[in-house]
């Protein structure tokens, strides 16, 4: 069991958790994730390790509340315990390539952070392009600034940085400054696909981190499989990072919708139950 040491709301429906997990903190490398289980009726939720501190024995998780399980996680209190397994997945290949552009969107900024840190530490010129719907959804700005040589922001509504998408900013960057040696893009599948489409004709090596539906995270179920270069790959063990130019994003996006009906029902039931508890003034159900 792992204790939640600190919980902060860092943006609307975004929480940061500091989790006590010394063994994982010692082993964590950029690009890896954990799976958490809230209780014995819960589902296994994959979450990237956004940061780790081997000395303090802690992990940082940044979670966007999108459905039943992540919303329920949001109701946990400091001192509560959850089950955590990891570190899972193949670590990012870190190398000094020159200039590396890190493109992050929404919750994807969390997994991007440790990668940007490691790329900068390896001597790269790290340029980060972060985007979100509106200013407050561009999360972890301070942490990403510390991990980057240069920051570029975009928002859909123009409330912060340039109005538009991260791909517009990336395009401008390339036009003005030339091709970077590498692009790493993490965010919604549609964003990663757009980045891949942009860098493909320019032949810029591009890495994406995929967030398919998972259960075990150890290569046992095959539920996380994606089509990469025509082969079926298991994201939890072969990934989560892949060469963006070989991923079949269309199929992946469809597969992410596998349990749409069930997820909607779970969310509805959860909210109903929750609201009814709230109106009853904390009465036990």
């Amino acid at each position, binding site marked *: 069991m792992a204790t939640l040491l600190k919980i902060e709301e860092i943006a609307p429906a975004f929480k940061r958790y500091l989790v006590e997990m010394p*063994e*994982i903190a010692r*082993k964590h490398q950029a690009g890896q994730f954990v799976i958490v*289980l809230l209780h014995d*009726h*819960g*589902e*296994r939720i994959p979450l990237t390790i956004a940061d780790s501190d081997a000395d303090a024995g802690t992990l940082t998780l940044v979670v966007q509340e999108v459905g*039943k*399980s992540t919303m329920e996680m949001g109701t946990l209190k400091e001192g509560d315990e959850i*089950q*955590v*397994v*990891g*570190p*899972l997945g193949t670590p990012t290949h870190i190398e000094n390539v020159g200039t590396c552009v890190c493109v992050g969107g929404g919750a994807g900024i969390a997994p991007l952070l440790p990668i940007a840190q490691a790329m900068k530490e390896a001597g790269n010129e790290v340029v980060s392009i972060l985007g979100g719907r509106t200013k407050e959804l561009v999360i972890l700005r301070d942490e990403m600034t510390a991990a980057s040589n240069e920051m570029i922001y975009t928002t859909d509504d123009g409330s912060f940085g340039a109005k538009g998408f991260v791909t517009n900013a990336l395009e401008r960057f390339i036009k003005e400054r030339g091709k970077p040696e590498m692009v790493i893009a993490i965010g919604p599948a549609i964003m990663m696909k757009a980045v891949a489409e942009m860098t493909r004709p320019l032949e810029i090596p591009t890495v994406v981190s995929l967030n398919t539906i998972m*259960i*075990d995270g*150890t*290569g*046992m*179920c*095959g*539920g996380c*499989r*994606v*089509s990469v270069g025509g082969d*079926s790959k298991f994201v939890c*063990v072969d990934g989560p990072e892949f060469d963006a130019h070989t991923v079949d994003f269309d*199929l992946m996006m*469809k*597969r992410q*919708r*596998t*349990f749409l009906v*069930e*997820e909607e*029902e*779970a969310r509805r*039931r959860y909210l109903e139950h929750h609201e009814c508890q709230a109106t009853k003034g904390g009465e036990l159900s």
Partner: protein
Amino acid sequence: MARELTKKERMQIPRQPMPAQDPMERIRNFGEVALGLTPEMAIAEAERCLECKKPRCVEGCPVGIDIPAFIVEMADGNFEKALAIVKKDNTLPAICGRVCPQEDQCEQVCVVGNKYKPVAIGRLERFVADWEVAQGGEIAMPERQPETGFKVAVVGSGPAGLACAAQLAILGHSVTLFEALHKAGGVLVYGIPEFRLPKKIVEEEVGNLQKLGVELRFNFVVGKLASVQELFTEYDFDSVFIATGAGLPYFMGIPGEDYIGVYSANEFLTRVNLMKGFDFPAYDTPVGMGRRVAVVGSGNVAMDCLRTAKRLGAEEVICLYRRTRAESPARLEELEHAEEEAIDFRWLSSPVEIYGDDDARVRGVRVQKMELGEPDASGRRRPVPIEGEQYDMEMDTVIMGIGQGPNPLVTRSTEDLELNRWGNIVVNEETMMTSIPGVFAGGDIVTGAATVILAMGAGKVAAAGIDDYLRNEVRVPRSKADGT
């Protein structure tokens, strides 16, 4: 005292039928199908045994249980003594009595079977194990030998790991069992369904391990959180037993296998069994099964998927197998149970393509009709496609139950570990030691997907190998050698 019966009289007692839930009733619940013999039935069944001087049945049992000895005690109504005899060689009788493919093992060679139906050895074994539970648990609790100070890591909590851990603890070693998932039991909990093996039985066995002092570490993926080498260097173990099973699901490599609605058997069964998805939304993990379900394959794994789909309320449940019923690798009892439950078996049928809609959801399967041709290397006649005979079946779920390979998480992260060409670990069969001194392995990770009893047997052999290695080669526990 048992009744004096002649050989002829014994043979004339009919094999006692296993009381079972009615098929039409049981397809609506997840309760156990086979209900177990009554004491009277068990005694009558035991009386059928001829107490052979050279019992062939014992040779048929992979762990060599002294079958006539325990059956004689049963015929006398001495269930406690019978249990002790069984437990000498099999630490998991409640499990093996339920899931062993007896018709290919002990019962296949029973002499009574030459003329009549063989003695129901598995059912008797199950009976004594259940009897113990009914008496309130561990009657034949083995005694622990004095502490040796040696620390052994057992990786994987399937039958191989459970058996090895129990045996090592009895021998006085300090044992930690590492399991990647959040529950212990391996395939016994995530694969084999409740209606065939109640999870309470597995929990009971795990509880017994804890009583023996075995420490359980869940959510610990060896190869990720610690490599096998680090279990020695950072965690101070003196020996490691790898029992990580055959957890890697195979797909067929046909078009459409990545569509929504195509599952590996592992995924489907894990959602239902381990995550309790059959009770969604009380449990959070959805299963997402449709109304028309096709399962590919005809082994135990496929039977479990078929019967689970039926219980989850699928209207049509179809089995596609490229050979015939005769070649079906499933336990006979499972096959018969599935037939009683109105599963639609399509023999000599092999899917060649899965087709879907624009949202990538499965719409159906294209099936190729087969016939049996020349025998292949395994001696079984090879299925060959009949040209031009293909048809489409509308389906919304397709489950691949065609087999599993070794999961490479541990083997890939362990240097100098010798593997065969299928990726299974190579061991010395007498000791179960791998190419790395002090590292042992057993169960499906060594043999490829096999059986519970073989895995359990391997765990026991390895425990003896490890014990010998520690006492005669290591001699001083690492923790003491370091002076800590």
